[in-house]
């Protein structure tokens, strides 16, 4: 490849400027402002007067000393991991199903997608109604088999109720991406393996799964980013309750900010909320780079 001339490179930079300006204004500035806030003592009274005091890491210490913070971290992890696991397995199973031709395949697939297209506030509200202990649809179904339950108002099951809704939202998205991935696998590989006497399970285990790795990693990463920062769905369904059974990290941050008006501590907690997705993102980018650098030999 020819090296671009200096002039062309300068022109290239020029084209980047609007994007850079956008990022600086809407990403870097708020982020830096948040970092600044997190090392100052800021409450409502000080906002106007500009009397914020530099407090170093005090806010981080206060947050780390708060059992409610760690409780919400645990909830976020449980919520994220269980959502990802269920979304992914169900999504994969459905992708395998929809990869085969059958009548109404396309129609069903697009119907399933509407679940993902709905705003979380809408689906959250719907699930709150459907899981309602007295008038909810699920209990009407479960009543005859004696399994009806106060899903969202019992602290021991409310998180499960929210995970259930989140999985329902996430499955179609997982399915769609995995389905695209399945289509990229050369059918000849399966045919050859079948001729060699490989069973369906062996073909899935040794051909489909390894070839689906890159797609799966992407799907899981996107799921992680979306699920770890979930706010609207939980807020609408339970508001963090009952007691604190569904107060995931984002709701904790929200409450510190907008209920207690402790902006410094809220900013510190918000930065900690950023850690997990950031780590995941870094790992992913490094992995991608390694894959790019790896010599690409044959198909497998």
């Amino acid at each position: 490849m020819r090296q671009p001339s200096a002039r062309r490179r300068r022109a290239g930079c020029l084209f980047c400027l609007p994007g850079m300006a956008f990022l600086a204004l809407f990403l870097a500035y708020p982020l830096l402002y948040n970092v600044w806030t997190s090392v100052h003592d800021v409450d409502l009274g000080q906002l106007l007067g500009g009397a914020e005091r530099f407090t170093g890491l005090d806010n981080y210490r206060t947050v780390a000393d708060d059992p409610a913070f760690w409780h919400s971290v645990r909830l976020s992890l449980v919520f994220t991991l269980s959502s990802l696991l269920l979304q992914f397995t169900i999504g994969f199973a459905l992708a395998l199903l929809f990869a085969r031709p059958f009548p109404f395949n396309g129609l069903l697939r697009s119907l399933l997608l509407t679940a993902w297209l709905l705003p979380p506030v809408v689906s959250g509200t719907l699930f709150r109604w459907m899981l309602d202990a007295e008038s909810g649809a699920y209990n009407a179904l479960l009543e005859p088999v004696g399994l009806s339950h106060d899903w969202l108002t019992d602290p021991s099951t409310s998180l499960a109720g929210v995970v259930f809704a989140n999985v329902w939202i996430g499955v179609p998205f997982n399915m769609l991406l995995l389905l695209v991935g399945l289509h990229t696998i050369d059918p000849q590989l399966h045919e050859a393996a079948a001729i060699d006497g490989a069973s369906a399970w062996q073909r899935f285990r040794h051909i489909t799964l390894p070839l689906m790795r890159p797609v799966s990693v992407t799907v899981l990463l996107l799921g992680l980013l979306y699920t770890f920062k979930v706010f609207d769905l939980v807020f609408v369904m339970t508001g963090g309750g009952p007691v604190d059974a569904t107060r995931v990290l984002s709701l904790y941050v929200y409450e510190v900010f907008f209920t207690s008006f402790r902006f410094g501590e809220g900013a510190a907690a918000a930065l900690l909320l950023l850690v997990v997705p950031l780590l995941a993102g870094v790992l992913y980018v490094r992995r991608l780079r390694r894959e790019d650098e790896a010599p690409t030999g044959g198909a497998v």
Partner: protein
Amino acid sequence: MSYSVDRRGFLRVSGAAAATAALGLASCSSDTSGPVTLSWWDYFTLDNFQPGMNRLIKDIEAGVPDVRIERRTFPFAELERQITLGAISGDLPDLAIVDNVSMNTLGGSRLLADLTARVDAWGQADAYYKGPWSGCQVGGKTLGIPNNSNCLALYCNTRMLEAAGVEPPTTWDELAATAQKLTSGDRYGLALSAIRTEEGVFQFLPFLWQAGGDLDSFSTYGATALAFLDELIAKGSLSEQCVGWTQQDVNTRFLNQRAAMQINGPWQIPTLKKADFDWNVVPLPRDKEAATCLGGENWVVMAGSKHVDKAWEVLEYTQRPSVLVPYLVSFGELPARKDLADRGSWASDPALRLFLSQLPLARPRQYGAHYAEASQAVAEAQQAVLTGSASPSAAARTAAKKIDKALGEQ
């Protein structure tokens, strides 16, 4: 001081001296010359509030010389947050109508203009009920004027009570007994909101006060109040689901006749008037003392406003009976002023009258800048007990620690 600088006069003057003078004038001449536009925020977004609000604003613009109102509305939960964000960005209104409980957070923040001197000169403080008025006092200063008031009372389904042969309860013991008698099938004796927000706390605090306690004695009296509610759930007279119910949900239960009694406010009356059964309202049952919680809104002026004088003039104007009564009637709200007790629809409507009669008992949630955290602790204690995850005394002790910490910080 009087300045008479019009635009031409301003243009005639030239040089640096003029610029300095103009800068000086810009800040203090605004109240004396030309119409002033006051920005105004509130959270009355529902359709049924608009005619009353539009009329009020027209009234103000016609009655207060040289004033124009530019109104913006936010959803209920958004207003306080917008004011907070506005404090950061410098985008704040001149006037706002805020929930009376917001005085806790906003009051200690230097965001609100101190109206004390103006109110003293005005001399009408005595015309207000004690609760609503003291709800506008923070740290010895007057930071607002009550806009309207409400409180909680007990709604009863008349026919159900008659069928069960019971009278509306007046004490806790009677409430428990009546609620139990009225419970049958999928019908609960009592419905109330115990949701994990200020709404649930609003409904819980009367029980705490009736038990003879307050937030500073929560470990003792909080336990009493929590145990009473816990007992109602244990006996099946109150649904455990109430930990997820808003007051609107509670009213729906009552309307569907799936609750024989409910604790709710006067804002439900218009909806209940359309019900096809008879109901009445009685004061909240008492224990050691009678108590109910004060709700409603206050008018406040922002400290950063360039037109505090004009804004105060507007507030003063709205307190004239000829302006205030039609406004409150159209909102279906109660006046915070004693001298209006015999005017408006609340003078004749028995349900509104009952609520009005409870206003002198209604206590504001006046606990200072860190009330929100104390309130959150109360809400969580209530939820823990009602969902059976903690005993009343344990939950009350845990909450008391958080409350003492929050309230001790001021």
